[in-house]
């Protein structure tokens, strides 16, 4: 079984500042890792995913994440945020076997202030 911990429920930041949203996971097997974004009253949209290979993964909207196996982390970063990045962000982990159903974190609300 896997579990995901998003350490911050809310992250306020000013526009054009950098941001990091933290995600730690636990799993007894190798995993795939995902970040999703949810805008108000909408479904979730895939931002990026780590399957294998380079530990630095680039996604849409200028976001990137780094897989750190030793620290079991997959933190999401953006060097300069925009007002439009205000949304809920979910980290998810899926084991390489079984039913392939991912486990989602509780979400981090990114609030970008002008």
């Amino acid at each position, binding site marked *: 079984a896997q579990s995901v911990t998003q350490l911050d429920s809310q992250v306020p930041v000013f526009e054009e500042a950098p941001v990091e949203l933290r995600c730690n996971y636990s799993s007894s097997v190798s995993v795939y890792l995902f970040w999703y974004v949810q805008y108000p009253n909408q479904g979730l949209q895939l931002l990026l995913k780590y399957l294998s290979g380079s530990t630095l993964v680039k996604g849409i909207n200028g976001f990137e994440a780094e897989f750190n196996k030793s620290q079991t982390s997959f933190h999401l970063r953006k060097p300069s945020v925009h007002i439009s990045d205000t949304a809920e962000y979910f980290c998810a982990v899926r084991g390489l076997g079984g*039913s392939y159903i991912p486990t989602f974190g509780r979400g981090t609300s990114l609030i970008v202030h002008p």
Partner: protein
Amino acid sequence: SQTIHQWPATLVQPVGSPLSLECTVEGTSNPNLYWYRQAAGRGLQLLFYSVGIGQISSEVPQNLSASRPQDRQFILSSKKLLLSDSGFYLCAWRATGLFHGYTFGSGTRLTVV
């Protein structure tokens, strides 16, 4: 291209009334289908998933049920709604195979009054 449709977008229902939420996927065959509920501040809770017609797996005991009458149709139902059923319901699909992420529908905001 593949699309997922979920309706209605919002729904206000009295306690004790029935529920039917529908989700359909286009442009793919034999998708894995999922129903999630999102309660405020509590993240995503997997309710049901289906790997094929008539095959439903339930993750948590609850007042809800799911059915998959056709390959690309997934229905979430309840005979009698409870106040605690209020939330944001999301349907998702995933292509079979190891490397695919989920595609989510736009969600249904259910308020039980």
